[in-house]
């Protein structure tokens, strides 16, 4: 029983970490090389990594969606691909509906190797090539040099708020265990 509890606890911790890693914004320094739309099939296996239906996404009869993409190169030369989709009013709660503007911004910031314009792309999600999933770009900020490391304030604040809520619920639970809803018996 003890080992079962430990195993369940560890699994829960890993699941929580993966959830936060997926849903919280992360910043990457990249150079944008290309922006385009592509018909993308959103299948049952990777649908949860794309925007929910009815967030302004249009699907054709074959179940394909016209998704905006942003191709980028990292300072170490490795490539990276973002998608750029509205999240609308649905999960995850980014309330993003300016993906057309973001795409225009990204196109404006395209640069080549000889004259690089480094940008910091804020995005959430994972790039899983075997499932064809892409992080969703949320905002783009220009950088003076690739060595600049902008602070990820949003994720820090969310983590602090979550920790505070956890502490509060822990105290509330302790108070409930001690006294229940009614008066103390003793």
């Amino acid at each position, binding site marked *: 029983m003890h080992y079962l509890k430990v195993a369940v606890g560890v699994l829960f911790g890993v699941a929580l970490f993966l959830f936060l890693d997926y849903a919280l914004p992360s910043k990457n320094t990249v150079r944008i090389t290309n922006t385009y739309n592509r018909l993308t099939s959103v299948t049952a296996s990777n649908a949860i990594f794309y925007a929910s239906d009815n967030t302004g996404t249009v699907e054709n009869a074959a179940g394909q969606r016209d998704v905006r993409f942003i191709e980028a190169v990292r300072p170490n030369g490795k490539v990276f691909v973002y998608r750029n989709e509205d999240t609308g009013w649905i999960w995850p*709660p980014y309330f993003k509906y300016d993906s057309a503007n973001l795409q225009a911004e990204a196109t404006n910031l395209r640069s080549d190797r000889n004259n690089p314009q480094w940008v910091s792309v804020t995005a959430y999600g994972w790039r899983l090539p075997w499932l064809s999933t892409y992080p969703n770009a949320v*905002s783009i900020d220009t950088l003076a040099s690739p060595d600049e490391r902008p602070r990820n304030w949003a994720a820090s604040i969310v983590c602090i708020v979550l920790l505070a809520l956890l502490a509060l619920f822990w105290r509330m639970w302790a108070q409930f265990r001690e006294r229940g809803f009614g008066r103390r018996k003793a």
Partner: protein
Amino acid sequence: MAAFIRLILFLLIAETLFYLLLRVYLRSLRTERLEEIWDTRHPAQAGNTPARRAFVRRSMTGFDKTLRSRLLLLVFVLPNLAVMGIIYWINWQ
């Protein structure tokens, strides 16, 4: 639009639940504190005596009008402000 209404409804339900839980918690804390005050003031009548119960009931009557329990209504304000903040930072920056 349907998604927006669903978001508002969901937020409202979550806030109400959180508000009720916090209210129970704050009242419980205050009740416990009042019992301790009674016990130190009246060591002879300490414990769960009728006198202490009456004292606690009397002292808790105005609790909903205290600053602390009014600040609790921020539960219905702060998450909505956070949502508006996110909308601003994501779409107008």
